[in-house]
Protein backbone atom coordinates (compact mmCIF):
# COMPACT_ATOMS: atom_id res chain seq x y z
CA UNK A 1 0.00 0.00 0.00
CA UNK A 2 1.37 3.45 -0.93
CA UNK A 3 1.46 5.93 1.90
CA UNK A 4 -0.31 9.15 0.88
CA UNK A 5 -0.06 11.18 4.05
CA UNK A 6 2.59 10.85 6.68
CA UNK A 7 3.08 12.84 9.86
CA UNK A 8 6.42 12.50 11.64
CA UNK A 9 7.04 13.46 15.23
CA UNK A 10 4.90 16.61 15.29
CA UNK A 11 5.34 18.97 18.21
CA UNK A 12 3.22 22.05 18.61
CA UNK A 13 2.36 24.61 21.24
CA UNK A 14 -0.17 27.42 20.57
CA UNK A 15 1.57 30.80 20.84
CA UNK A 16 1.14 32.23 24.31
CA UNK A 17 0.05 28.97 25.90
CA UNK A 18 2.24 27.05 28.30
CA UNK A 19 1.22 23.44 27.61
CA UNK A 20 2.18 21.84 24.28
CA UNK A 21 -0.84 20.48 22.42
CA UNK A 22 0.98 18.00 20.20
CA UNK A 23 3.80 16.02 21.77
CA UNK A 24 5.44 13.86 19.12
CA UNK A 25 2.55 12.70 16.97
CA UNK A 26 3.35 10.29 14.14
CA UNK A 27 0.88 8.58 11.84
CA UNK A 28 0.35 7.59 8.24
CA UNK A 29 -2.55 7.19 5.87
CA UNK A 30 -2.48 4.86 2.89
CA UNK A 31 -4.23 5.23 -0.47
CA UNK A 32 -7.87 4.19 -0.21
CA UNK A 33 -7.72 3.84 3.56
CA UNK A 34 -10.52 4.69 5.98
CA UNK A 35 -9.10 5.75 9.32
CA UNK A 36 -10.87 7.07 12.40
CA UNK A 37 -9.20 9.47 14.82
CA UNK A 38 -10.63 9.39 18.31
CA UNK A 39 -9.74 10.92 21.66
CA UNK A 40 -11.35 12.99 24.38
CA UNK A 41 -12.08 16.69 23.91
CA UNK A 42 -8.89 18.71 23.96
CA UNK A 43 -6.67 15.75 23.09
CA UNK A 44 -5.38 17.62 20.02
CA UNK A 45 -7.33 16.08 17.12
CA UNK A 46 -8.32 19.37 15.52
CA UNK A 47 -4.86 20.79 16.00
CA UNK A 48 -3.38 17.74 14.30
CA UNK A 49 -5.75 18.00 11.32
CA UNK A 50 -4.90 21.69 10.89
CA UNK A 51 -1.25 20.66 10.63
CA UNK A 52 -2.08 18.05 7.98
CA UNK A 53 -3.53 20.80 5.80
CA UNK A 54 -0.70 23.28 6.34
CA UNK A 55 -2.80 25.76 8.31
CA UNK A 56 -0.69 25.41 11.43
CA UNK A 57 3.06 25.08 11.25
CA UNK A 58 4.67 22.63 13.70
CA UNK A 59 7.38 23.66 16.13
CA UNK A 60 9.12 20.41 15.26
CA UNK A 61 8.46 17.48 12.93
CA UNK A 62 7.15 17.32 9.37
CA UNK A 63 4.21 16.43 7.21
CA UNK A 64 4.72 14.48 3.99
CA UNK A 65 2.21 14.10 1.20
CA UNK A 66 2.90 11.32 -1.29
CA UNK A 67 6.43 11.04 0.05
CA UNK A 68 7.24 14.75 -0.29
CA UNK A 69 8.03 16.98 2.66
CA UNK A 70 5.56 19.86 2.47
CA UNK A 71 6.70 23.49 2.55
CA UNK A 72 4.91 26.61 3.71
CA UNK A 73 5.45 29.06 0.82
CA UNK A 74 2.38 30.08 -1.14
CA UNK A 75 3.09 27.77 -4.09
CA UNK A 76 3.80 24.81 -1.83
CA UNK A 77 0.65 25.43 0.20
CA UNK A 78 -1.41 25.55 -2.97
CA UNK A 79 -0.02 22.17 -4.07
CA UNK A 80 -0.65 20.86 -0.57
CA UNK A 81 -4.28 21.94 -0.46
CA UNK A 82 -4.89 20.55 -3.91
CA UNK A 83 -4.09 17.13 -2.41
CA UNK A 84 -5.45 17.41 1.10
CA UNK A 85 -8.98 18.67 1.76
CA UNK A 86 -10.36 19.51 5.19
CA UNK A 87 -13.97 19.77 6.33
CA UNK A 88 -14.95 21.27 9.64
CA UNK A 89 -17.47 20.43 12.30
CA UNK A 90 -19.75 23.40 11.67
CA UNK A 91 -20.58 24.08 8.03
CA UNK A 92 -21.54 27.64 8.96
CA UNK A 93 -17.86 28.28 9.60
CA UNK A 94 -16.97 27.11 6.13
CA UNK A 95 -19.71 28.48 3.89
CA UNK A 96 -18.83 32.10 3.28
CA UNK A 97 -20.83 32.92 0.19
CA UNK A 98 -24.51 33.72 0.09
CA UNK A 99 -24.85 31.49 -2.97
CA UNK A 100 -24.37 27.72 -2.85
CA UNK A 101 -22.95 27.43 -6.37
CA UNK A 102 -20.55 30.28 -5.82
CA UNK A 103 -19.33 28.84 -2.55
CA UNK A 104 -18.50 25.52 -4.17
CA UNK A 105 -16.67 27.28 -7.02
CA UNK A 106 -14.31 29.04 -4.62
CA UNK A 107 -11.80 26.18 -4.14
CA UNK A 108 -11.44 25.18 -7.81
CA UNK A 109 -10.88 28.80 -8.84
CA UNK A 110 -8.22 29.14 -6.16
CA UNK A 111 -6.45 26.19 -7.78
CA UNK A 112 -6.14 28.36 -10.88
CA UNK A 113 -8.68 26.42 -12.97
CA UNK A 114 -10.45 28.17 -15.83
CA UNK A 115 -14.11 29.14 -15.41
CA UNK A 116 -15.32 26.28 -17.56
CA UNK A 117 -13.24 23.67 -15.72
CA UNK A 118 -14.36 25.11 -12.39
CA UNK A 119 -17.97 24.94 -13.57
CA UNK A 120 -17.46 21.27 -14.36
CA UNK A 121 -15.93 20.67 -10.93
CA UNK A 122 -18.89 22.37 -9.24
CA UNK A 123 -21.33 20.19 -11.17
CA UNK A 124 -19.39 16.98 -10.42
CA UNK A 125 -18.94 17.69 -6.72
CA UNK A 126 -22.58 18.71 -6.35
CA UNK A 127 -23.71 15.50 -8.04
CA UNK A 128 -21.42 13.40 -5.85
CA UNK A 129 -22.78 15.01 -2.68
CA UNK A 130 -26.39 15.03 -3.88
CA UNK A 131 -26.81 18.80 -3.79
CA UNK A 132 -27.34 19.57 -7.47
CA UNK A 133 -30.88 20.73 -6.73
CA UNK A 134 -29.56 23.20 -4.15
CA UNK A 135 -27.08 25.01 -6.40
CA UNK A 136 -29.36 27.98 -7.09
CA UNK A 137 -30.40 28.32 -3.44
CA UNK A 138 -29.10 30.89 -0.99
CA UNK A 139 -26.81 29.34 1.61
CA UNK A 140 -28.84 30.60 4.56
CA UNK A 141 -31.96 28.77 3.45
CA UNK A 142 -30.39 25.29 3.78
CA UNK A 143 -30.99 22.78 6.56
CA UNK A 144 -28.09 21.57 8.70
CA UNK A 145 -27.63 18.36 6.72
CA UNK A 146 -27.78 20.23 3.43
CA UNK A 147 -25.18 22.71 4.65
CA UNK A 148 -22.86 19.86 5.64
CA UNK A 149 -23.15 18.29 2.20
CA UNK A 150 -22.58 21.63 0.49
CA UNK A 151 -19.51 22.22 2.65
CA UNK A 152 -18.26 18.78 1.66
CA UNK A 153 -18.91 19.55 -2.01
CA UNK A 154 -16.89 22.76 -1.63
CA UNK A 155 -13.90 20.70 -0.54
CA UNK A 156 -14.40 17.79 -2.96
CA UNK A 157 -14.60 20.23 -5.89
CA UNK A 158 -10.85 20.66 -5.36
CA UNK A 159 -10.54 16.88 -5.95
CA UNK A 160 -8.17 16.14 -3.07
CA UNK A 161 -6.64 12.67 -2.75
CA UNK A 162 -6.91 12.87 1.00
CA UNK A 163 -9.97 14.02 2.88
CA UNK A 164 -9.70 15.08 6.51
CA UNK A 165 -12.98 15.48 8.37
CA UNK A 166 -13.05 17.09 11.80
CA UNK A 167 -16.16 15.77 13.57
CA UNK A 168 -18.07 16.55 10.42
CA UNK A 169 -20.72 13.94 11.19
CA UNK A 170 -21.29 14.71 14.84
CA UNK A 171 -24.15 17.17 14.42
CA UNK A 172 -25.99 15.07 11.84
CA UNK A 173 -28.96 12.81 12.38
CA UNK A 174 -28.31 9.06 11.87
CA UNK A 175 -29.81 9.03 8.37
CA UNK A 176 -27.78 11.99 7.21
CA UNK A 177 -24.73 10.37 8.76
CA UNK A 178 -25.33 7.26 6.66
CA UNK A 179 -25.68 9.49 3.64
CA UNK A 180 -22.30 11.10 4.36
CA UNK A 181 -20.65 7.73 4.92
CA UNK A 182 -22.04 6.58 1.58
CA UNK A 183 -20.38 9.58 -0.08
CA UNK A 184 -17.15 8.67 1.71
CA UNK A 185 -17.50 5.14 0.38
CA UNK A 186 -17.63 6.44 -3.18
CA UNK A 187 -14.48 8.48 -2.55
CA UNK A 188 -12.65 5.47 -1.18
CA UNK A 189 -13.70 3.49 -4.25
CA UNK A 190 -11.90 6.16 -6.28
CA UNK A 191 -8.73 5.46 -4.30
CA UNK A 192 -9.01 8.46 -1.98
CA UNK A 193 -8.10 8.26 1.69
CA UNK A 194 -10.18 9.52 4.57
CA UNK A 195 -9.19 10.47 8.08
CA UNK A 196 -12.24 11.13 10.21
CA UNK A 197 -12.05 12.62 13.69
CA UNK A 198 -15.10 11.42 15.57
CA UNK A 199 -16.62 10.63 18.95
CA UNK A 200 -19.02 8.07 17.56
CA UNK A 201 -17.76 4.61 18.46
CA UNK A 202 -20.42 2.94 16.38
CA UNK A 203 -19.06 4.62 13.24
CA UNK A 204 -15.56 3.69 14.36
CA UNK A 205 -16.41 0.00 14.68
CA UNK A 206 -18.48 -0.31 11.53
CA UNK A 207 -16.76 2.08 9.13
CA UNK A 208 -13.07 2.41 9.99
CA UNK A 209 -10.35 0.04 8.84
CA UNK A 210 -7.99 1.47 11.42
CA UNK A 211 -8.38 3.58 14.54
CA UNK A 212 -5.91 6.08 15.92
CA UNK A 213 -6.43 6.99 19.56
CA UNK A 214 -5.03 10.27 20.87
CA UNK A 215 -4.67 11.57 24.39
CA UNK A 216 -2.96 14.72 25.58
CA UNK A 217 -1.18 15.29 22.29
CA UNK A 218 0.12 11.77 21.81
CA UNK A 219 -0.94 8.73 19.84
CA UNK A 220 -1.74 5.94 22.30
CA UNK A 221 -2.91 3.28 19.88
CA UNK A 222 -3.09 2.66 16.16
CA UNK A 223 -4.92 -0.57 15.31
CA UNK A 224 -7.88 -2.02 13.42
CA UNK A 225 -11.08 -1.62 15.45
CA UNK A 226 -11.57 -5.37 15.94
CA UNK A 227 -8.14 -5.62 17.50
CA UNK A 228 -8.46 -2.43 19.57
CA UNK A 229 -11.81 -3.33 21.08
CA UNK A 230 -10.79 -6.92 21.95
CA UNK A 231 -7.36 -6.25 23.43
CA UNK A 232 -7.71 -5.60 27.20
CA UNK A 233 -4.24 -4.03 27.42
CA UNK A 234 -4.95 -1.58 24.61
CA UNK A 235 -8.37 -0.79 26.04
CA UNK A 236 -6.93 0.00 29.45
CA UNK A 237 -4.06 2.02 28.04
CA UNK A 238 -6.36 4.20 25.96
CA UNK A 239 -9.00 4.57 28.67
CA UNK A 240 -11.56 3.07 26.28
CA UNK A 241 -12.27 0.26 28.74
CA UNK A 242 -14.48 2.62 30.75
CA UNK A 243 -16.37 3.73 27.64
CA UNK A 244 -16.87 0.16 26.47
CA UNK A 245 -18.10 -0.97 29.90
CA UNK A 246 -20.05 2.22 30.49
CA UNK A 247 -18.60 2.78 33.98
CA UNK A 248 -16.01 5.28 35.13
CA UNK A 249 -13.21 3.62 37.13
CA UNK A 250 -13.00 5.00 40.71
CA UNK A 251 -9.48 6.37 40.26
CA UNK A 252 -10.42 8.64 37.34
CA UNK A 253 -12.60 11.73 37.63
Amino acid at each position, binding site marked *: MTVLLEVRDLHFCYPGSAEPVLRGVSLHLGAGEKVALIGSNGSGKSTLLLHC*NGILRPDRGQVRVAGQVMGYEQQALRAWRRQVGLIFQYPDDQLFS*ASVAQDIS*FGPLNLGLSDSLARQRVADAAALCGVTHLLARPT*HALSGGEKTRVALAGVLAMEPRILLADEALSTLDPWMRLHMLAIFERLVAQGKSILLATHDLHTVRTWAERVIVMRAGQVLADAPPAQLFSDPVLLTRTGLDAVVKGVLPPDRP
Partner: protein
Amino acid sequence: MSQIDRYAYTSRIRHLDPAQKTGLAALVIILCLILPRPAVGVGAVLWMGMLTVWWGGIPLPVVGRVLLAEFLFLLLAVVGVVLSFSWEPPPVGFWSLQLGPLWISTNQGSLALAGLLVSRAFGATAAMNFLALTTPFIDLVDLLRRLRVSPVLIDLMDVMYRFVFVLLDSMGRIATAQQSRLGYATRRAAWRSSGLLASRLFVDAYQRSQRMQTALASRGYYGDLRVLPLDYRHDGRVYLLTAAVVVSLLLAGSRA
Protein backbone atom coordinates in the same frame (compact mmCIF):
# COMPACT_ATOMS: atom_id res chain seq x y z
CA MET B 1 -34.99 42.37 4.10
CA SER B 2 -35.30 38.63 4.44
CA GLN B 3 -39.06 38.75 3.74
CA ILE B 4 -38.62 40.56 0.45
CA ASP B 5 -35.66 38.37 -0.43
CA ARG B 6 -37.74 35.27 0.18
CA TYR B 7 -40.28 36.41 -2.40
CA ALA B 8 -37.45 37.18 -4.79
CA TYR B 9 -36.27 33.57 -4.62
CA THR B 10 -39.72 32.30 -5.51
CA SER B 11 -40.16 34.71 -8.39
CA ARG B 12 -40.86 33.25 -11.82
CA ILE B 13 -38.16 35.49 -13.30
CA ARG B 14 -35.59 34.80 -10.61
CA HIS B 15 -33.24 33.25 -13.16
CA LEU B 16 -33.60 35.98 -15.72
CA ASP B 17 -30.36 37.90 -16.14
CA PRO B 18 -30.35 40.56 -13.39
CA ALA B 19 -28.80 42.97 -15.88
CA GLN B 20 -32.02 42.84 -17.91
CA LYS B 21 -34.25 43.35 -14.90
CA THR B 22 -32.06 46.12 -13.53
CA GLY B 23 -31.93 47.77 -16.95
CA LEU B 24 -35.71 47.87 -17.18
CA ALA B 25 -36.12 49.22 -13.63
CA ALA B 26 -33.39 51.81 -14.13
CA LEU B 27 -34.94 53.13 -17.36
CA VAL B 28 -38.31 53.48 -15.68
CA ILE B 29 -36.77 55.33 -12.74
CA ILE B 30 -34.91 57.71 -15.06
CA LEU B 31 -38.05 58.45 -17.10
CA CYS B 32 -40.01 59.14 -13.91
CA LEU B 33 -37.38 61.62 -12.83
CA ILE B 34 -36.91 63.50 -16.12
CA LEU B 35 -40.45 63.66 -17.55
CA PRO B 36 -42.39 66.33 -15.62
CA ARG B 37 -45.89 64.86 -15.94
CA PRO B 38 -47.84 62.92 -13.31
CA ALA B 39 -49.10 60.54 -16.00
CA VAL B 40 -45.58 59.14 -16.32
CA GLY B 41 -45.45 58.16 -12.65
CA VAL B 42 -48.94 56.68 -12.80
CA GLY B 43 -48.03 54.73 -15.93
CA ALA B 44 -44.85 53.48 -14.27
CA VAL B 45 -46.76 52.24 -11.23
CA LEU B 46 -49.26 50.41 -13.43
CA TRP B 47 -46.58 48.82 -15.58
CA MET B 48 -44.30 47.83 -12.74
CA GLY B 49 -47.12 46.58 -10.53
CA MET B 50 -48.48 44.47 -13.36
CA LEU B 51 -45.11 43.10 -14.32
CA THR B 52 -44.24 42.24 -10.72
CA VAL B 53 -47.48 40.29 -10.35
CA TRP B 54 -48.01 38.66 -13.73
CA TRP B 55 -44.50 38.35 -15.03
CA GLY B 56 -42.63 38.06 -11.74
CA GLY B 57 -45.25 35.79 -10.20
CA ILE B 58 -45.39 37.67 -6.89
CA PRO B 59 -48.87 37.46 -5.29
CA LEU B 60 -51.05 40.51 -5.93
CA PRO B 61 -51.86 41.07 -2.23
CA VAL B 62 -48.14 41.22 -1.43
CA VAL B 63 -47.40 43.74 -4.17
CA GLY B 64 -50.55 45.69 -3.28
CA ARG B 65 -49.66 45.92 0.38
CA VAL B 66 -46.12 47.05 -0.30
CA LEU B 67 -47.31 49.70 -2.79
CA LEU B 68 -50.03 50.94 -0.45
CA ALA B 69 -47.61 51.37 2.43
CA GLU B 70 -45.22 53.28 0.21
CA PHE B 71 -48.04 55.44 -1.16
CA LEU B 72 -49.21 56.46 2.32
CA PHE B 73 -45.65 57.26 3.26
CA LEU B 74 -45.24 59.47 0.19
CA LEU B 75 -48.53 61.27 0.93
CA LEU B 76 -47.36 62.10 4.43
CA ALA B 77 -44.09 63.34 3.01
CA VAL B 78 -45.76 65.94 0.74
CA VAL B 79 -48.15 67.38 3.36
CA GLY B 80 -45.64 70.18 3.86
CA VAL B 81 -45.68 71.00 0.16
CA VAL B 82 -49.46 71.06 -0.15
CA LEU B 83 -50.57 72.89 2.95
CA SER B 84 -49.42 76.22 4.23
CA PHE B 85 -50.20 77.41 7.73
CA SER B 86 -50.55 81.08 8.71
CA TRP B 87 -52.22 83.47 11.20
CA GLU B 88 -53.51 85.67 8.40
CA PRO B 89 -56.17 84.87 5.83
CA PRO B 90 -54.64 83.58 2.59
CA PRO B 91 -54.71 85.66 -0.62
CA VAL B 92 -57.41 85.12 -3.23
CA GLY B 93 -57.17 81.98 -5.30
CA PHE B 94 -56.39 79.81 -2.28
CA TRP B 95 -58.70 77.28 -0.73
CA SER B 96 -58.60 77.57 2.98
CA LEU B 97 -59.85 76.26 6.27
CA GLN B 98 -59.95 78.31 9.48
CA LEU B 99 -59.15 76.60 12.79
CA GLY B 100 -59.50 79.23 15.52
CA PRO B 101 -56.93 81.89 14.65
CA LEU B 102 -55.04 79.52 12.32
CA TRP B 103 -55.56 79.40 8.56
CA ILE B 104 -54.70 76.23 6.69
CA SER B 105 -54.62 76.83 2.97
CA THR B 106 -53.65 75.43 -0.36
CA ASN B 107 -53.94 76.32 -4.02
CA GLN B 108 -54.01 74.66 -7.36
CA GLY B 109 -50.31 75.22 -8.01
CA SER B 110 -49.10 73.48 -4.86
CA LEU B 111 -51.58 70.64 -5.36
CA ALA B 112 -50.26 70.10 -8.87
CA LEU B 113 -46.70 70.18 -7.63
CA ALA B 114 -47.50 67.66 -4.89
CA GLY B 115 -49.24 65.44 -7.41
CA LEU B 116 -46.19 65.49 -9.63
CA LEU B 117 -43.84 64.77 -6.74
CA VAL B 118 -45.90 61.89 -5.44
CA SER B 119 -46.46 60.30 -8.83
CA ARG B 120 -42.79 60.58 -9.78
CA ALA B 121 -41.57 59.13 -6.50
CA PHE B 122 -44.27 56.46 -6.56
CA GLY B 123 -43.33 55.40 -10.09
CA ALA B 124 -39.67 55.15 -9.18
CA THR B 125 -40.55 53.24 -5.99
CA ALA B 126 -42.67 50.76 -7.93
CA ALA B 127 -39.71 50.12 -10.23
CA MET B 128 -37.50 49.47 -7.20
CA ASN B 129 -40.15 47.12 -5.82
CA PHE B 130 -40.17 45.22 -9.10
CA LEU B 131 -36.42 44.74 -8.87
CA ALA B 132 -36.34 43.88 -5.16
CA LEU B 133 -39.24 41.42 -5.37
CA THR B 134 -37.89 39.51 -8.38
CA THR B 135 -34.12 39.70 -7.90
CA PRO B 136 -32.45 38.27 -4.79
CA PHE B 137 -29.65 40.19 -3.18
CA ILE B 138 -27.00 37.71 -4.32
CA ASP B 139 -27.99 38.27 -7.95
CA LEU B 140 -27.58 42.01 -7.52
CA VAL B 141 -24.17 41.49 -5.93
CA ASP B 142 -23.28 39.21 -8.81
CA LEU B 143 -24.33 41.92 -11.26
CA LEU B 144 -22.09 44.45 -9.49
CA ARG B 145 -19.29 41.91 -9.74
CA ARG B 146 -19.84 41.64 -13.49
CA LEU B 147 -19.85 45.43 -13.72
CA ARG B 148 -16.38 45.34 -12.15
CA VAL B 149 -17.26 47.23 -9.02
CA SER B 150 -14.34 47.07 -6.55
CA PRO B 151 -13.84 43.41 -5.51
CA VAL B 152 -13.22 44.37 -1.90
CA LEU B 153 -16.64 45.98 -1.73
CA ILE B 154 -18.30 43.00 -3.43
CA ASP B 155 -16.61 40.42 -1.18
CA LEU B 156 -17.63 42.46 1.83
CA MET B 157 -21.27 42.59 0.72
CA ASP B 158 -21.33 38.85 -0.02
CA VAL B 159 -19.83 37.81 3.31
CA MET B 160 -21.82 40.41 5.27
CA TYR B 161 -25.07 39.17 3.81
CA ARG B 162 -24.10 35.61 4.72
CA PHE B 163 -23.07 36.67 8.22
CA VAL B 164 -26.28 38.53 8.93
CA PHE B 165 -28.14 35.23 8.88
CA VAL B 166 -25.48 33.34 10.83
CA LEU B 167 -25.51 35.98 13.54
CA LEU B 168 -29.29 36.22 13.62
CA ASP B 169 -29.20 32.50 14.26
CA SER B 170 -26.73 32.85 17.13
CA MET B 171 -28.71 35.72 18.55
CA GLY B 172 -31.88 33.64 18.54
CA ARG B 173 -30.15 30.78 20.30
CA ILE B 174 -28.53 32.95 22.97
CA ALA B 175 -31.80 34.76 23.65
CA THR B 176 -33.67 31.47 24.00
CA ALA B 177 -31.06 30.17 26.42
CA GLN B 178 -31.39 33.35 28.47
CA GLN B 179 -35.17 33.18 28.47
CA SER B 180 -35.12 29.58 29.64
CA ARG B 181 -33.26 30.80 32.72
CA LEU B 182 -35.69 33.70 33.30
CA GLY B 183 -33.34 36.23 31.74
CA TYR B 184 -36.21 38.47 30.63
CA ALA B 185 -38.63 37.92 33.51
CA THR B 186 -38.24 41.39 34.99
CA ARG B 187 -37.27 44.68 33.40
CA ARG B 188 -33.97 44.71 35.28
CA ALA B 189 -33.15 41.19 34.18
CA ALA B 190 -34.07 42.10 30.63
CA TRP B 191 -31.64 45.02 30.59
CA ARG B 192 -28.88 42.86 31.96
CA SER B 193 -29.63 40.00 29.58
CA SER B 194 -29.67 42.31 26.55
CA GLY B 195 -26.27 43.65 27.51
CA LEU B 196 -24.87 40.16 27.94
CA LEU B 197 -26.45 39.12 24.67
CA ALA B 198 -24.77 41.97 22.81
CA SER B 199 -21.33 41.28 24.25
CA ARG B 200 -21.73 37.55 23.73
CA LEU B 201 -22.73 38.14 20.13
CA PHE B 202 -19.66 40.26 19.57
CA VAL B 203 -17.37 37.52 20.90
CA ASP B 204 -19.28 34.97 18.85
CA ALA B 205 -18.86 36.99 15.66
CA TYR B 206 -15.17 37.38 16.32
CA GLN B 207 -14.60 33.67 16.93
CA ARG B 208 -16.67 32.77 13.89
CA SER B 209 -14.63 35.06 11.70
CA GLN B 210 -11.47 33.36 12.98
CA ARG B 211 -12.84 29.94 12.17
CA MET B 212 -14.07 31.10 8.78
CA GLN B 213 -10.62 32.49 8.04
CA THR B 214 -9.15 29.06 8.81
CA ALA B 215 -11.71 27.28 6.64
CA LEU B 216 -11.09 29.69 3.75
CA ALA B 217 -7.35 29.15 4.05
CA SER B 218 -7.82 25.40 3.81
CA ARG B 219 -9.51 25.94 0.45
CA GLY B 220 -6.61 28.03 -0.83
CA TYR B 221 -7.68 31.58 0.09
CA TYR B 222 -5.07 34.27 -0.58
CA GLY B 223 -7.04 37.43 -0.02
CA ASP B 224 -9.35 37.16 -3.01
CA LEU B 225 -12.81 35.60 -2.80
CA ARG B 226 -13.01 34.45 -6.40
CA VAL B 227 -16.23 32.69 -7.37
CA LEU B 228 -17.93 31.79 -10.65
CA PRO B 229 -20.56 34.12 -12.02
CA LEU B 230 -24.05 32.70 -11.60
CA ASP B 231 -25.96 31.23 -14.53
CA TYR B 232 -28.83 33.28 -15.88
CA ARG B 233 -31.36 33.01 -18.63
CA HIS B 234 -30.97 35.78 -21.13
CA ASP B 235 -34.24 36.53 -22.87
CA GLY B 236 -34.34 38.63 -26.04
CA ARG B 237 -38.05 39.37 -25.58
CA VAL B 238 -37.22 41.43 -22.51
CA TYR B 239 -35.79 44.10 -24.84
CA LEU B 240 -39.14 44.31 -26.63
CA LEU B 241 -40.93 44.56 -23.34
CA THR B 242 -38.54 47.24 -22.13
CA ALA B 243 -39.02 49.17 -25.36
CA ALA B 244 -42.81 48.98 -24.96
CA VAL B 245 -42.61 50.30 -21.42
CA VAL B 246 -40.25 53.13 -22.40
CA VAL B 247 -42.32 54.20 -25.42
CA SER B 248 -45.56 54.24 -23.46
CA LEU B 249 -43.99 56.31 -20.68
CA LEU B 250 -42.52 58.72 -23.23
CA LEU B 251 -45.97 59.10 -24.78
CA ALA B 252 -47.50 59.72 -21.37
CA GLY B 253 -44.83 62.34 -20.74
CA SER B 254 -45.12 64.20 -24.03
CA ARG B 255 -48.86 64.68 -24.57
CA ALA B 256 -49.57 68.34 -24.09
